[in-house]
């Protein structure tokens, strides 16, 4: 596909793992590696399919997961003594827990930041700055979007191969216009509503890319009422 969405992927592989752990309600200390690896790869697959810039770190983590999986599946007699003692997942779990702490710290900081928004000092500059900058908030994560998109795709059914038969550039542009038209009629729509009536997978991909592009352009914003809930698309 020639059209490349320049959306920055802020989230990394650790975010994706934590996301999956939470979504699947897993115990971080006892991660079912095979299951999580499978899901992890599925997300990578979707990202690649969408031609998103999948950072190298995602692939490194995929390799790590597969390595852990293979070691867990090895019969005990084939393992070295020190390998027996340590759970092959231990290192990853440690990293995830460490990272999760900082994510939590970040959440606390965010709460503080929002608190501060209610407070004004005697600074005209700030007031001027305020009226110019309308902060943008990606309130649902990229993984939430990918997850929703993956559900949409699954709903259509069979794993039909993607064909590169269209001039995406114009099509994405058309889709963008389409989406904005829809949002002119109604100020907000559920994520899935943009895919209603689409049977062609390629068209669905293009629609998704158009949504990503609109997020990047700050024309639309996405929100979730609750974690892992339905995604709603709003006109900015």
């Amino acid at each position: 596909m020639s059209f490349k969405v320049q959306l920055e992927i802020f989230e990394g592989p650790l975010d994706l793992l934590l996301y999956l752990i939470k979504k699947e309600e897993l115990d971080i200390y006892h991660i079912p590696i095979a299951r999580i690896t499978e899901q992890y790869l599925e997300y990578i697959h979707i990202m690649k399919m969408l031609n998103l810039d999948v950072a190298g770190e995602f692939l490194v983590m995929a390799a790590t997961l597969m390595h852990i999986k293979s070691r867990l599946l090895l019969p005990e007699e084939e393992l070295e003594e020190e390998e027996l003692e340590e759970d092959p997942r231990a290192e990853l779990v440690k990293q995830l827990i460490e990272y999760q702490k900082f994510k939590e710290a970040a959440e606390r900081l965010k709460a503080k930041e929002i608190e501060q928004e209610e407070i004004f000092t005697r600074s005209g500059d700030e007031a001027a700055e305020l009226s110019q900058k309308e902060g943008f908030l990606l309130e649902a994560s990229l993984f939430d979007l990918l997850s929703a998109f993956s559900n949409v795709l699954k709903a259509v059914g069979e794993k039909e191969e993607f064909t590169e038969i269209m001039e995406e550039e114009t099509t994405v542009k058309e889709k963008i216009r389409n989406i904005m038209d829809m949002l002119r009629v109604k100020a907000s729509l559920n994520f899935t509503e943009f895919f209603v009536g689409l049977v062609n997978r390629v068209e669905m991909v293009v629609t998704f890319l158009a949504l990503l592009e609109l997020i990047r352009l700050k024309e639309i914003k996405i929100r979730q009422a609750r974690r892992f809930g339905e995604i709603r698309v709003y006109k900015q």
Partner: protein
Amino acid sequence: MELQEARAIIEALLFSADKPISVEQIKEVLEEIDSKSIQSLIKNLQDEYESQGRSFQLVEVAGGFRMSTRPQFGPWLKKFYKVRHRERLTAASLETLSIIAYKQPVIRSEIESIRGVDVAGVLHSLLEKRLIRVMGRKMILGRPLIYGTTDEFLEHFGLRALSELPKMEELVKPQINTDSHRNTDKGTKDDEVKYIATDEHG
């Protein structure tokens, strides 16, 4: 100089500044008044604004004192300035900031090993926003830059000092999702390996 006069000057200083002013800075202006008196005069002003129900308050932040409106007027002020909210930091920035705040002095590779992604772009934008600063170079191979947070960081989040950050131990342990935790908690390691096997072949 009488304390009453000193108090008025302190009020004028705090009123005119849009950055927090420290007791030391006030002392430099007032000279003959000792720090302890300055502190108690500030406290006195704080109490007065409180008891008089003034719309502004005097808050200790980033090692100094700053006058600001009370939070309950936020909605009205936003209406006046026609803004919904200030530019908020992205999740990536917040995470990187937390790591720097807790681990400082810290180098880029340490941050990256925790976040698991490249943070060059985020560091750049945090430096631009003056929320972090370069503290020097680490005397190891490659002489990497050392990062730390700034007073603006404290101000942005309304913190008096770094010690006001929640203790690492206080941060919620693994999951935020306690229900799910209970479910899987009972499982032993053996169970899971089995589970993996079934999962694989099922």
